[in-house]
């Protein structure tokens, strides 16, 4: 039977501050375990939390970028549960008065522009990190806890149940990540856990106005696994419903190795978090000028940049989408476009050979000097070098940051062109290869490639093959 799939996502983002939400401990990712901890983030008696102003600013910027309505008054609450990743046995979070309500994210989907609504955006503290001994969470006999992460500012974004497939969930997430990257609020690295996603998923007969029983899926560690896990859940739940059985409300883990979801036994009364207002923190009051100042400084967001790349530079959609999806590349494009006017050529080089070289050599776009890139393309345009030489220089430019102009001068890579230089070389090759010339003249026209190669060799690869070809054909007629 056909079902309508209903998915809502809950996304957690670590905000890009250098110190934690309530104390001055560092948020650095790669420190020795338990070295970024203090009485506040360990929840030692007598310690008091003090808000990190930057964390509040970043949370507001994120909410504004998501069109969510920032509340002038919001409150922090204690969410009580026992799990060893929480040193205090509660998490400071927000419950009934979140930082921002509503909102939406718009993005380019297969079917055109898609808008997914949001329920809320709120700020909370990150938990510590557990390492489970043994191969999996199920086999572990004990766990090891590192509290370095505990207390890092964490943003929670909850979508409306408006997503209808694993593919769409993935597209939403990728675009949410991009928006948050552009807004500069988080580095959004799923592999390091600074962007995480849980999903609620249920099925119902098409047209039904009641939701089916949902399952919550956790532990999806990549965009790909979000799509796979949700597709798997759709299949699992559909099979149950087809068989006249019911879906049990439960939490499952995505098992990346076996590509399936595994049910975790229902935590006893796990939903009873006994929220109550955090007595150590005053309610958060944000005045209009605080919010307006941040709104004024809002960086350009992906949809605006896409529009600009299309209109200002006349790029085709494919190139514009690719550049938008990679902020580093589009920054490089724009900086170079300021000094090099052939925008489409520039975009082609950037998304083609340059991107390839960056990946090949493990470099970032920001390491590329726009002046050098422009220099290289001008040398090519002016006929000083040919394409193969340009590609070679690009590689060295990426690898060692060397100026293409200087490389050309130092190595004598200037293109050899014009009949004056090329005709003698062509004549030499014709003289040296009588057999090839004979077969060409007997009709084996393909032989010209061989001769062309010989002339190119003599120029050290620095001539335009088209020009040699013309001269060769001309000479072979005689």
């Amino acid at each position, binding site marked *: 039977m056909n079902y309508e799939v209903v998915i809502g996502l809950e996304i957690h983002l670590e905000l890009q501050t250098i110190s934690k939400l309530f104390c001055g401990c560092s948020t650095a990712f790669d420190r020795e375990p338990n*070295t970024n901890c203090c009485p506040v983030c360990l929840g030692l008696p007598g310690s008091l939390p*003090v808000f*990190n102003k930057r*964390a509040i600013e970043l949370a507001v910027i994120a909410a504004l970028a998501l069109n969510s309505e920032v509340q002038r008054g919001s*409150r922090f609450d204690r969410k009580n549960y*026992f799990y060893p990743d929480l040193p205090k046995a509660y998490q400071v979070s927000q419950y009934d008065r979140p930082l921002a309500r509503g909102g939406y994210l718009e993005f380019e989907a297969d079917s055109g522009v898609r808008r997914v609504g949001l329920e809320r955006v709120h700020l909370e503290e990150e938990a510590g990190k557990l390492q489970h001994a043994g191969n999996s969470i199920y086999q572990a006999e004990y766990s090891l806890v590192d509290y370095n992460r505990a207390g890092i500012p964490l943003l929670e974004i909850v979508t409306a149940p408006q997503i209808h497939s694993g593919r769409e969930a993935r597209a939403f997430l990728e675009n949410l990540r991009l928006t948050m990257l552009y807004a500069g609020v988080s580095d959004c690295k799923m592999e390091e856990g600074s962007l995480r996603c849980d999903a609620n998923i249920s099925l119902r007969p098409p047209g039904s106005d009641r939701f089916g029983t949902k399952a919550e899926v956790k532990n999806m560690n990549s965009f790909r696994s979000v799509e796979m896990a949700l597709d798997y859940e759709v299949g699992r739940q559909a099979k149950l419903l087809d068989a006249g059985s019911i879906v049990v409300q439960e939490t499952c883990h995505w098992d990346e190795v076996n590509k399936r979801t595994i049910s975790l*036994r*229902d935590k006893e009364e796990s939903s009873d978090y006994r929220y109550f*207002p955090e007595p150590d923190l005053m309610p958060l*009051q944000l005045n209009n000028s605080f919010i307006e100042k941040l709104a004024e400084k809002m960086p350009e967001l992906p949809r605006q940049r896409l529009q600009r790349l299309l209109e200002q530079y006349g790029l085709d959609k494919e190139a514009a989408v690719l550049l938008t999806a990679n902020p580093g590349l589009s920054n490089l494009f724009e900086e170079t476009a300021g000094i090099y006017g052939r925008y489409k050529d520039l975009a082609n080089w950037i998304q083609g050979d340059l991107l390839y070289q960056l990946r090949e050599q493990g470099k970032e776009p920001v390491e590329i000097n726009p002046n050098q890139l422009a220099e290289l393309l001008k040398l090519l345009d002016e006929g000083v070098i040919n394409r193969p030489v340009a590609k070679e220089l690009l590689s060295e430019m990426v690898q060692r940051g060397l100026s293409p102009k200087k490389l050309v001068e130092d190595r004598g890579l200037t293109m050899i062109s014009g009949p004056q230089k090329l005709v003698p070389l062509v004549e030499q090759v014709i003289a040296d290869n009588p057999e090839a010339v004979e077969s060409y003249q007997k009709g084996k026209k393909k032989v010209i490639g061989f001769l062309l190669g010989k002339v190119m060799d003599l120029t050290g690869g620095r001539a335009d093959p088209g020009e040699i070809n013309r001269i060769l054909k001309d000479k072979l007629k005689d």
Partner: protein
Amino acid sequence: MGIDFNREVDRVARLARLSLDPDEKKHMADQLSDILETARRIQELDTSGIEPTSHVINIPVAMREDEVKPSLPLSKVLQNAPRRENDYVKVPRVTPPASNEEGK
């Protein structure tokens, strides 16, 4: 009010991972009953026109700049940990086993 205080104490104790003997339970049930009775009497007051509040003083929330301050030395961080392994706090496994090892 129809609340079974003994059951309520059992529930809260379970959530708080507290084990109480029968005397303690009785003691807690009596206290809980008194506390809720007090709350009931407060609820009789007419609070229409009064802003709901979670704090008794009305001062702006304190903020600090985003600056890193020294953390505690590792020896202090782990001082109260009942068990440790290397530089980690060692805890019993908490996640319950899968309800169906075969998956579903």
